[in-house]
C-alpha cells in the first residue's frame, strides 16, 4: 500500500515566523486554587497531574479534546508510545514548532508530567523536517526527549504514528497543551491563551503570537499590522482553514493555529475537469478522487460509498494540484456530510 500512497510537495513559507520569538499579547492571566499548592513538581502523583489539567481547563489543540479526559481514558503501560505533536506541515503555520524551539524547558516539563501519568514505553517529539526554503535546523533533543523528524510530502501529520509496529497504541498530545500543563504545574495558571501564527503576504510583521482565547481576528491582524487590504482572511491552516468575511466577529479558539491574510484569493475561475488524474496521484489515501468528484456532483452516494469516501481525511491535496482549479476536496467533504445526513434519516 505504501507504494501507492503519495502526497504533494508544498513550499513551507515558515520564515520568518519560526525563528522570531513568540509575541505575547498584553492580558491578565487567570489562576486557579488547588488542594496541593506546596508539593514539588517531581512528587506529583498521577491523580494530581490529571487534577491539574482539569483545573487549568487545558484543551489539546491537535484534536480539540480536554487534556484531562484524554490522560484519564487513554491506554497506559508498556504498549503505549507517547507522541508530542509538533508537526506543522501546512504552509505558513508554525505555532506548535515555535513552542518546542523557543520554550523547550516548558515543553519537556509538560512531557515529563504526561509521561508520569501514562508511563509509556517510549516518548518522542514529532516535528516536520522538510522545510526546504529555510536554513533552520531542528534540534535533535528537547530536554531529555528525542525529536523524531517526520519528513516527506504533505500531509505528514497523518503519518506521525505510521512506523509504529502493529498492536502498539499511541497517544498523541499537542505541544501547546504540554506547555499549558507545565504552566499549570509551576504557576497554577489557567489555559486562557492559544498560540496563533499570523502570516500572509500582506502582514507587516509576521510572527507567532500568544493571544487570549476569544480575541477577534481583526485585533490579531492589527497587532501585527497590514501593508495593504487583504482579499482573503483565513482562520486556521492554509490548507484546511476557512475564509472569513467578518474579521471583527470571528474569534480564535483553542484549536486555531493561524490567521492568514492574503492579498489575492485564487478566485472562483475554473475550467471543466480534463481528467488528467493528478488528484488521484496526490491523494495520500490512494482514493480515486477524479471519479468520486463526478459521483458527488451527481449525487450518487451508493457509488461514493463503494469508492471508500469515508477514508477521505480532507487534507485538500487534490484541490491543490488540480490544474482546472476545481474545489475537489470541498465537493467531497460536502457530499460526505450529505451522506451522513441521509444515513441518519434512513434514506440510504
Amino acid at each position, binding site marked *: 500500500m505504501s507504494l501507492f500512497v503519495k502526497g504533494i510537495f508544498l513550499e513551507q513559507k515558515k520564515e520568518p515566523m519560526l525563528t522570531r520569538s513568540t509575541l505575547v499579547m498584553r492580558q491578565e492571566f487567570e489562576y486557579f486554587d488547588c488542594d496541593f499548592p506546596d508539593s514539588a513538581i517531581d512528587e506529583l502523583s498521577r491523580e494530581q497531574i490529571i487534577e491539574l489539567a482539569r483545573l487549568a481547563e487545558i484543551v489539546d489543540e491537535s484534536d480539540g479534546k480536554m487534556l484531562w479526559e484524554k490522560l484519564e481514558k487513554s491506554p497506559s503501560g508498556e504498549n503505549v508510545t507517547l507522541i508530542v505533536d509538533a508537526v506543522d506541515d501546512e504552509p505558513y503555520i508554525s505555532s506548535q514548532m515555535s513552542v518546542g524551539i523557543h520554550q523547550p524547558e516548558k515543553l519537556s516539563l509538560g512531557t515529563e508530567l504526561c509521561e508520569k501519568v501514562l508511563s509509556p514505553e517510549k516518548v518522542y517529539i514529532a516535528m516536520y523536517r522538510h522545510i526546504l526554503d529555510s536554513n533552520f535546523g531542528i534540534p535533535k533533543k528537547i530536554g531529555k526527549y528525542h525529536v523524531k523528524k517526520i519528513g516527506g510530502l504533505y500531509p505528514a501529520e497523518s503519518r506521525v504514528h505510521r512506523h509504529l509496529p502493529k498492536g502498539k497504541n499511541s497517544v498523541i498530545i499537542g505541544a501547546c497543551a504540554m506547555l499549558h500543563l507545565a504552566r499549570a504545574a509551576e504557576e497554577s495558571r489557567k489555559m486562557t491563551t492559544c498560540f496563533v501564527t499570523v502570516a500572509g503576504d500582506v502582514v507587516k510583521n509576521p510572527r507567532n503570537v500568544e493571544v487570549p482565547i476569544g480575541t477577534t481576528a481583526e485585533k490579531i491582524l492589527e497587532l501585527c499590522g497590514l501593508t495593504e487590504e487583504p482579499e482573503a482572511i483565513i482562520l486556521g491552516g492554509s490548507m484546511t482553514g476557512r475564509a472569513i468575511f467578518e474579521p471583527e466577529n470571528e474569534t480564535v479558539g483553542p484549536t486555531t493555529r493561524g490567521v492568514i491574510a492574503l492579498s489575492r484569493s485564487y478566485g472562483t475561475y475554473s475550467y471543466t475537469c480534463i481528467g488528467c488524474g493528478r488528484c488521484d496521484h496526490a491523494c495520500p489515501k490512494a482514493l480515486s478522487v*477524479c471519479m468520486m468528484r463526478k459521483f458527488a456532483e451527481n449525487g450518487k452516494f451508493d457509488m461514493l460509498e463503494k469508492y471508500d469516501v469515508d477514508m477521505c481525511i480532507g487534507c485538500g491535496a487534490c484541490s491543490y494540484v488540480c490544474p482546472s482549479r476545481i474545489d475537489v476536496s470541498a465537493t467531497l467533504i460536502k457530499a460526505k456530510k450529505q451522506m451522513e445526513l441521509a444515513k441518519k434519516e434512513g434514506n440510504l
Partner: protein
Amino acid sequence: MKERLMFQNAPHVRQSESVVTMMTDVIVALLPIYLIAFFYHGARSLVLGISGVLFCGLLSVLGAILLREKPAADLTPIITGLIIPLLLPADIPYYVLFSACAVAIFVVKIPFGGTGYNLFNPAAVGFASVAICWPELVFRYPATMQKIEVFGESTVKIAQSPAYSLSLGAIPDQNILDLLLGSAPGPMGATNILVVVACGIFLIVKKAINWIEPVSFILPYSVLCLLFPRIGGSPLEALCYELFSGALIFGAFFMLTEPVTSPKRDFGKLMAGVSSAIVVFLFRYFGKFEMGFASALILMNVFSPIFDSVCENVLHVLRHTDNISASIKAEIAAKKAAKTVSEPVVRPVKKTEEAEIAEVSEEIAEIEAIEVSEEVLEAENETTEETEKEEALAK
C-alpha cells in the same frame, strides 16, 4: 477591510500550474514541428496549420453558441487544429483538412459535452474519418524539398512512403538517417523523428504529459517488432524502419497522452500503453491499411475507463488489506493455540467462555490475595526478626 473579502474554499494556496499553462506547453512543443515542415514543404504547411487552428476555433465557438453557452477561453481546439494537419500530407486539399476538423469538433467533442467529456481523441477520429473518405489523397505523400503551391491543386512529384513499402513487405528506399531527419516522404509533421522526440521530452520535463504512456507504448512495440519482423535483413534495421515510419512516435507523444481519453493512474496508463502497442502491431502486421495508429488509438480509448476501474478495484482491496491481514493473523494464532492444547479440542460456546474467563479471573484474584497476604506475613516476620536482633545488639 470587509468590502474586498472574497469567498474561497480550502485549501487557500494553489499550484501555479493550470490548464492554460499545460495547453500552452503543448502548443509551444508543436511549433518546432511546423518549422521543420516549413523547411521541407514550404509555406503551404504553415498555412495548413493556421487554417486548421482558425477553423477549429471557429467551430467550437459556433458549437457553444448552438448550445446557448458562453464560449469558454479554451485552448484545446487550437491543439486539435494543430495536430490534424501534422498527420496529413503537405499537399492535402483544404477541404479534406476542414472536414477532418469538422468531424473532430462537431462529432467527437461538442455532442458529448465539450472539453473534458469527449470519449475519443478528436484529432484521431478526424484523421481516421478523412482517411476512410479520401484514402487516395491522404496516403499520397509529396517528395520532400519541393515548393508546393500555397493554394490550389498541387502539381508536385509523388513519392512512396516507407510505411507503404513496409506494408508491402519491402525494404524502403530511404535509409534510416533520412527517416530520422524527416527527409523521407510521409505525414507532414510525423516524419522528423528527432524533432518530435525532442519536443516530447520537453513536454515530459515540463510535466505537461506523463512519461509512462510513450515509454510503455514504444518499448513493447519494439520488442514485438524484433520478434516478428515484417521485412528481411537485420532485425535492428527492421525495427528502426518500423518505429520511424508513419505517425507512430508522433502519436505516442502527442495523441496517446491526451489527458481526457487516457486512464488516470500510472498503472492504468501502463496497461493502456502496452495494449495499444499490441493492437497497433496487430493492425500493421495483418492489416493492409496504413493508418494503424489512429484506429488503434480510437479502439483503446474505449478501454481506458475499464483500466481505471481495474486500478480502483486493486486499490480497494489494498486499502482494506490491513484489516484483512490482521483478522487472518488472529485466526492463525487461535489455531496454533488450539493445537498446543493436548486435550481434544471442543469449541466452547461464547457464554461458557465468559464463564471460564470469570472463573480464571477469580482464581487469579484468589492467588494474588494469598500472595499478598504471604508477603505481608514475611515482611512482618522480617521486621520482628530485625527488631529482635537490634534489641539483642542493644543489650
